[in-house]
């Protein structure tokens, strides 16, 4: 058994993937973190206090986990969903009635989205109460606040996609609220969002692109910076 393991570790394939030995000394343990793409964000040293679960409650990690769930289920939903007025509602009904586990996918996407908004908010509270926004971490707090806004925007843009009465009026009311902004800015933003003056075909496509591409990509970029900064500042 041990022989096979040794041969495996010494093989060309293994050594090309893991370019350090087994984490047996301080140096190799540090290398294991440096040279791994998934671990490279980690700080080399972490304070014992901050590993304690009740200090962070793992809320940031859970948010990220939910984001992954949303990306996976969302990608699968995109296979069946067409963002066009005659088809959108029917596609949703098809997901519900004939796609294998389609209803499960929709439910998972929906509940994960709800949970993400709640968890991200709790994460923000935790950061506030532990005072983690204080210098030198103030920039990361700002990124976090922007991430919170992207989370809510993702939720809101997804609301239109089922194309039923609830979503139609939800978006109508929302964009009309935007129109209340003074100096004609509101009208401009609302027009830009809807691609017109009413919730119609253009609005559906715009919200689809925002929901599935623009906002998620922005969120991923911001998250990368967010995580990187956390590690550099000695967080988990």
């Amino acid at each position, binding site marked *: 058994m041990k022989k096979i393991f040794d041969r495996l570790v010494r093989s060309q394939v293994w050594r090309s993937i893991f370019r350090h030995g087994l984490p047996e000394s301080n140096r190799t343990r540090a290398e294991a973190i440096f040279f791994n793409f998934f671990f490279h964000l980690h700080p080399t040293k972490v304070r014992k206090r901050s590993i304690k679960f009740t200090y962070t409650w793992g809320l940031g990690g859970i948010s990220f986990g939910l984001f992954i769930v949303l990306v996976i289920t969302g990608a699968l939903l995109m296979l069946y969903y067409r963002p066009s007025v*005659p088809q959108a509602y*029917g596609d949703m*009904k*098809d997901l519900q*009635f*004939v796609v*294998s586990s389609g*209803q*499960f996918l929709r439910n998972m996407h929906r509940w994960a989205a709800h949970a993400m908004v709640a968890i991200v908010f709790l994460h923000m509270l935790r950061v506030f109460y532990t005072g983690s926004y204080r210098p030198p971490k103030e920039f990361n707090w700002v990124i976090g606040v922007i991430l919170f806004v992207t989370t809510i925007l993702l939720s809101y843009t997804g609301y239109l996609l089922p194309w*039923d009465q609830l979503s139609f009026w939800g978006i109508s009311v929302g964009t009309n609220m935007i129109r209340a902004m003074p100096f004609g800015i509101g009208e401009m933003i609302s027009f830009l969002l809807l691609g017109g003056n009413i919730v119609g075909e253009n609005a559906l496509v715009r919200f689809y692109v925002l929901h599935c591409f623009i906002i998620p990509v922005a969120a991923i970029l911001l998250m990368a910076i967010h995580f990187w900064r956390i590690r550099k500042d000695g967080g988990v």
Partner: protein
Amino acid sequence: MNKLRIYFAISSVVFLFVLAISPLKDFFSEWRGYQLAYNEIIKELPQRIQPVDIGIKQLWVRKLDVVDRCTTCHLGLKEKALVNAKEPFRSHPHIYHDFEEFGCTICHNGQGSATSYKESKGKVKYWDKPIFPREYMEASCGKCHKEQVVIQAPILSLGRKLINEYNCAGCHKLEGRQRQWVPSLNGIGSKVNRSWLVNWLKNPKAYFATAKMPNFQLSDDEANTIADFLMTFKSFSNNAILEPLPSLLIQSSESQTATLVEIGSTRLRESRCISCHPFNGKGGYVATDLGKVASKVNLRWLYNYIKNPKHFQPNVEMPRYRFNNNDLTGVVAYMNSEYVDFDMAEPPSHTPDPLYYEKGLVLVKKYNCRGCHEIENIKNSEELGPDLSFIGSKKLYEIDFGLSGISQSLSSYIFTKLKSPRTFSSKMKMPNYELSDEQAQAIAVALLGNTSEQIPEELKIKPKPASTFTPQGKFGKLVNDLACFGCHTMFGRGRLVATDLTLEASMAKQEWIDHYFKVPYSLRPILTERMPNLFLSDDEIKTLVDYMEKVFIADSLTNDILINEATVAKGKLLYSEKYGCGSCHQINGKGGFVGPTLDKVASRLQPGWILHWLKNPQAYKPESIEPNNNFTDHEAEAITAYLMTLH
């Protein structure tokens, strides 16, 4: 730390379990159970039926852009052997349409994309087209079939007929429905007696049960005010003026009156008023009941009106009888003595409101009397009632059910509204038509078919454009004066109370038509409608007959046939033995009562007509019950030859 690992392990197992539930739910779905049950059931049947491959089935109707998955569970729709099987496997009743071509939800409603019982019936939240109740099914025919009569949908057709009859289009916007002619109210002050008018306004059906005017549920005050208001309309349209009554009617001795009444009674019978007018419920259905008319109108109006109906009601479909003065006086005297309402309640005395004109005008506008009746100087308040063009697509959240407590569906709303229009709010204005359940249901069916669904134009059956046949010249004037279109149809225009005259001259011999105008009689022993004697002059008859001989004729129907003893004998044998024509037709008093008597048929009908008629009766009268016996040419000729010997 170890504790955390345990939590992690447990939650992982839980999530894995949750992930497994979903495919399991798919596998144990409702429809799979039905499909397995179907395959079991058909095994026990003596007939061989193809078992179903397990899987979701669907009908895709491209032209309607519809996907219906009802056939996932309704598996035996096409199997005749499953007529009595239990649902959902029962075969579909035979209808004209193929469901594979049109899908299910276009007629039945419900949620076609669903694959579970509850969802597919559509009686769930957020689905606004639940499955149609069976008694309202024919409404769906009306989505595409916009013609007046849909033969395979009798309830729908009845509803459309009633909508026309009750003049719903007077107040409501209704696509394809025309306003009916209703008497104009100009001159009503010179026509009716005020007590009658008050009673009538309060409850028209109390005067005659068949009255078409609905009950507006007016209070005593309202009825009196409207009556006072209407009694001010003394002058007729076109400045028509009532002539004074002949002196004989006003002051005559008892014996003179008796002779007058005697003459009137005879003339009234000869002119067959009863063909169109019922008298106390007995008689025709085209015109108003005359059983109590002498208590309704004053004599002077009656005299003038019979003398020239169109002078006072320009579009009325009543013929102008050619009575001489004496006969006319007699008819009026007879009606005055006979058709009196002895039980008419005298309304309680009433002091007119000084503002009766203004208040009356407001009421007449409020209840939109103008929707049906023409009234001088009052404009029609267009579409006073709600637009009913798309009532079938009305959403439940748009309806106020009030405190009615009825089941919350569109069909029961419309039904209740028709039965008692003010149930939902006492402020509503719709009058009560006192419809029977069948009538209300039929109208509801017709209305529910008015949907805003996008039906491709090529699938819609549109009503035929109305015929614009308007005869000109002397004949045209006579046709108008005699209101022929009130009973007869010519080239697609007119009512079908009596025969279609389009091919009359090809059918009947000239001498017979000529004679018929003088002494009209019934061709069939059991027929109720009868042609009135209009007392036409010889000149007028000549005009009519000459025109008919030129226009109401088709050259393709003129055939001469050979009449010799052999064919006549053969025809007689065919008539009496092979085809048993005598079971419906009479000759010499022997035979059935259904068809016309054939005693003197040779002097009535053209041989060419008989020949073509025998070969295909329905080609000339689609509703004829004469069977198409598929005669050979020889047989038809022989029967014709035989009939042409019956002078």
